[in-house]
Structure formats: C-alpha cells, structure tokens
C-alpha cells in the first residue's frame, strides 16, 4: 500500500487511524479503576476519619499502609498508570483542599464528641466521608467511560 517512505494512500492512513483509536481505547480500559478499588479506598478514608475524630490513634498507621498497598496493588495488576493531565497548580490545589477537608472533618467530629457529647459523631462523619469519596471515584470512573466512548466515535 505504501508507494514509498513519504507517500501513503488514503486507505492506509485511515487504517492507521482506526488502529490508533483501537489501541488508545485498549489503553484507557487498562487504567479504568475497578469499583472494588474505589470502595476499598472510600472505606479506609472513612475509617481513618472516624478513628482520628474519635481520638483513637493506635491503628492509623495500619490504615495508611493499607491505602498505599491498595493503590500499589491496583497499579501493578493493571500494568499501567494513568497519565496526569491536570496542571501542577490544579494538583497542588486539590491536595491542599483534600488535606483541609480531612482536618475539617476530624476537628468537627472531635468538637461534636468532646464539646457536645455526641459520641456517634466520628462514626457518622466517617461514614459520610466514605460515601462522598466513593461517589467521587464513581464520577472518575464515568469520566473514563466517556473518554473510552469518545475514542470509539
């Protein structure tokens, strides 16, 4: 199909473009975060907030290690990592917002428990944080689906 190194036909170019789309779709499918991954991380984040909020600090290190193991296991089993398309400024802003939200939730849970005597507050806030985190992972998953669908068209 190729006339010479610098001359190719339209049909060959179209076949190459189709092949590119197919591989890009395969690549995106590889890094599609599974539901168990989002659920596990959400559970661990919620547990960490509930424990710190309740003033129990004995198992914090274990939860942080479990989070790291979950992320590493997911990356290794997928055999691929996603490409960060956000700017450095956006990433820094997201990290600052996440850390601020974490401490805000922990402090709120501690205040409600210690000042107002609501012993259930850390558990409820931890559960709410877990649900919100899980919803965020579902949104991320859906954005991957739409990227894969976009590659199809």
């Amino acid at each position: 199909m190729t006339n010479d190194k610098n001359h190719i036909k339209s049909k060959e170019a179209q076949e190459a473009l189709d092949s590119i789309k197919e591989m890009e779709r395969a690549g995106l499918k590889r890094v599609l975060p599974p539901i168990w991954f989002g659920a596990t991380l959400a559970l661990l984040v919620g547990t960490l907030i509930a424990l710190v909020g309740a003033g129990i600090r004995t198992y914090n290190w274990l939860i942080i290690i479990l989070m790291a193991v979950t992320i590493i296991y997911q990356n290794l089993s997928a055999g691929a990592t996603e490409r960060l398309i956000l700017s450095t400024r956006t990433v820094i802003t997201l990290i600052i917002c996440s850390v601020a939200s974490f401490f805000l939730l922990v402090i709120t849970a501690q205040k409600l428990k210690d000042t107002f005597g609501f012993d259930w507050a850390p558990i409820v806030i931890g559960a709410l944080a877990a649900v919100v985190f899980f919803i965020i992972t579902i949104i991320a998953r859906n954005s991957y689906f739409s990227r894969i669908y976009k590659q199809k068209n």
Partner: protein
Amino acid sequence: MKNSNFDTIIHAPNRLQICALLSPLGQVEFRVIRDELSVSDSVLSKHIKQLEDVGYVKQRKSKVNGRERRWFHLTNTGRKAFELHVEELKRIVSELQ
C-alpha cells in the same frame, strides 16, 4: 505529495500501536504492551529499542518480588512526534476523500 510530519519510525504497524497505547497513559508495563499487540517478547523488544533509539520512548525498571518489571512511557519528543503523525494521517485522509 510530500508528507512533512509523516514519521516513518512511528508509522510501522507495531510501533504505531505501541505509541497509540502509550499516548493516553502515564507508564505501561512490558507484558501489557506485549499482550495488547499480541507479539512475542523479542519482536516487542526490537520495536521498543527502535523507539528508544530516536528518543520517543523511555523505560524505567522496577523489582517486584525479586522479578524485574520494565515500564515504558512516551517522552515529550515522542508524544509530539506521535501527535504530528496523527495530524498528518488525518490530513491525508481528508485531502484524498
């Protein structure tokens, strides 16, 4: 008709697929590329070596349970060359239709 951004290194079917697989991702492990392309280790190594030689792809080695794993990613030069190549292919298709 001279295709100015047409890249003969990238255009070979297997290398085109390697670049296409790497383009939307950060890093991809050797076994994943091999499985997606359905080629042998030696064939894949040969094509990756060609892409590495022109600076389009870089590799990182890591050890998991004592076994070496090789991860690959497109360099900025490789990404740019791939994008230009895709644009060129699109231009060829649109011009000749």
